[in-house]
């Protein structure tokens, strides 16, 4: 299986496929990784590499990976991204007036706007002891372990008490002219009462298979509020495996919306802990998958304090031979009385060959809680289609109207105007590609 990869190793600088290839790269790169001179960080990286060695890439025998097969990842040999970044790199339009750009996991000052409250993580590592890695678990999450071992850079956003960070776009571009991997590590810390709208987009250029595997650690202090719109628009052969950890203190809000429209294979995991009373989480999302695409939205929500509301509506639209996955686990701890949890997963199948796997999981240890969940799977409603067509609306337009309507409920929940507009635009782009 590895023969062709091994053969091209020397010319293209690719490593062997599978976990061994990544570990080999870690050994080769280690001395040059940012912050390796900091003992705490070197130890963090080494422990993570060891955790990854012990676990390897997850297989479908692992419960949490039952529906998502990482074969496209484990069977590919990857190489290092090239440097430096050409400033001529074509980029998508701004989704917010201010944006920072990361190329292949590295901050690009040239492509980024000035006066954005985002810094390059790599340049501030000495300040981050005890903060970096405070939320991200590596012992049972091999992709997070891999990220911790290999990250070179990422966004560092730290807002002081009551500071308003405004709307910031974080654009991650991967140049996919060769099979490269990028493992950016982003750290977002909102002090008490701070506010931020973060529009995070993942974008790819080129035809090659590549891996973009970011990890976010998001600290939301008491009364702080973050809107995190995540737009995955990777290139068509891309692999996107992202993990977000968020911890929300009393009265704070982590309000996220995840949109999967690109990539060959994508999985976004969110691990959100509500640790103070009245902390809130919105883990909404939509997946729009066309022929040959696989999208997986997996969430773990920890209600660890009383009086916390959580809302989760995830909608998946599947065309052609595509596969969608939704896994949503809600854990209500014994202290989390008066939890108000809502989870809804809905899928719209546009083809006979599409498949959706849905796994809600509620674990409730408190007695006074309100937790509801539901799932629906359906096709476009023939009566609705006919009604639109009977008014002279062509069938293709009628279908797109109904698909948009299906998504509307999910996107409407995004109160931040710029985030909602960026999401709508990504949805429209998907529809144009899949209309036929």
């Amino acid at each position, binding site marked *: 299986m590895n023969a062709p990869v091994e053969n091209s190793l020397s010319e293209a600088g690719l490593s062997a496929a599978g976990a061994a290839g990544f570990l080999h790269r870690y050994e080769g790169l280690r001395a040059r990784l940012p912050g390796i001179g900091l003992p705490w960080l070197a130890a963090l990286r080494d422990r993570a590499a060891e955790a990854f060695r012990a676990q390897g890439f997850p297989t479908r025998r692992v419960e949490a990976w039952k529906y998502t097969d990482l074969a496209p990842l484990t069977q590919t040999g990857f190489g290092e991204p090239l440097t430096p970044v050409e400033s001529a790199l074509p980029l998508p339009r701004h989704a917010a007036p201010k944006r920072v750009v990361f190329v292949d996991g590295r901050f690009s000052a040239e492509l980024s706007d000035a006066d954005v409250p985002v810094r390059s993580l790599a340049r501030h590592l000495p300040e981050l002891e005890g903060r970096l890695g405070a939320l991200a678990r590596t012992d049972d999450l091999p992709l997070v372990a891999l990220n911790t071992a290999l990250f070179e850079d990422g966004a560092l956003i730290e807002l002081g008490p009551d500071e308003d960070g405004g709307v910031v776009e974080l654009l991650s571009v991967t140049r996919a002219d060769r099979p490269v991997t990028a493992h950016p590590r982003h750290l977002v810390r909102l002090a008490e009462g701070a506010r931020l709208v973060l529009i995070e987009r993942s974008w790819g250029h080129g035809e090659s298979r590549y891996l973009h595997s970011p990890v976010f650690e998001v600290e939301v202090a008491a009364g702080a509020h973050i809107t995190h719109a995540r737009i995955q628009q990777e290139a068509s052969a891309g692999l996107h495996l992202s993990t977000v950890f968020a911890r929300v203190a009393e009265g704070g809000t982590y309000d996220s919306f995840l949109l999967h429209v690109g990539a060959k294979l994508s999985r976004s995991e969110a691990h959100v802990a509500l640790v103070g009373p009245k902390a809130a989480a919105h883990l909404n999302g939509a997946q729009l998958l066309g022929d040959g695409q696989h999208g997986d939205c997996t969430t773990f929500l920890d209600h660890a304090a009383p009086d916390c509301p959580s809302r989760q509506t995830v909608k998946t639209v599947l065309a052609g031979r595509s596969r969608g996955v939704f896994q949503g686990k809600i854990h209500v701890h014994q202290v989390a009385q008066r939890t108000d949890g809502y989870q809804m997963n809905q899928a719209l199948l546009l083809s006979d060959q599409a498949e959706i796997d849905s796994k809600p999981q509620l674990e409730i240890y408190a007695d006074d809680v309100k937790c509801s969940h539901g799932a629906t799977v359906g096709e476009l409603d*023939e009566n609705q289609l006919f009604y639109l067509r*009977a008014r*002279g609306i062509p069938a293709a337009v009628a279908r797109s109207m109904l698909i948009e*309507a299906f998504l509307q409920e999910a996107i409407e929940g995004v109160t931040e105007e710029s985030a909602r507009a960026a999401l709508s635009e990504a949805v429209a782009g998907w529809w144009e590609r899949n209309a036929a």
Partner: protein
Amino acid sequence: MLKIEGLTAEIDGKEILKGIDLEVPQGEVHAIMGPNGSGKSTLSYVLAGREGYEITGGTASFNGHDLLAMEPEERAATGLFLAFQYPVELPGVGNANFLRTALNAQRRSKGEPELDAMQFLKTARARMKELSMPEDMLKRGVNVGFSGGEKKRNEVLQMALLQPRVAILDETDSGLDIDALKIVADGVNAMRGPDFSAVVITHYQRLLDYIVPDRVHVLMGGRIVQTGGPELAKQLEASGYGSVQAA
């Protein structure tokens, strides 16, 4: 002219329309009356092009265009309009967006320029005022949370905006109080003219007091069993459909 000849249709192998013959010349309004289950809605769906019906025989044309060979949207573009007996709810589709998309789709197919949002709103508001519809109905999802009467008025609003050349109104009067009934009738009467014809399906004579038809047809058991002038409707009101069956 709407011309139907020997039209037969079945659903799931069960014959519902058993040979319909009907001619509605341009400029005329005809009523179809008949008891529940006689095939009135089936006829209107078949003419509008809904799936699920097997047309086993006969023809239906409008101004020489073979309706049965066209997609539903093409039928609409030639000027056919069906006011649904049970208007469909479209959650998540705004009524304004729906109306404008429909109107512009038809304008495009006629080679007319599309209306922008402002032009559309102006037109829509004027029509809504005539139909005593509150303006916020534009903002709501299509028919979502509308009362029965609001749904029917929304159908008439669509007709008023789309300006069809032949309208089939399938029990647009049912569930309306007398005031709403008058408003709906005014909406239809306002469209009457040499280039507009209508088929008004009802099983109450009441509506026909306000929309006076040129001809009245009685549909029973999938066939038109009797045709007459407006007085036929009054006669049916008095003696019921039993007398027709006996005839």
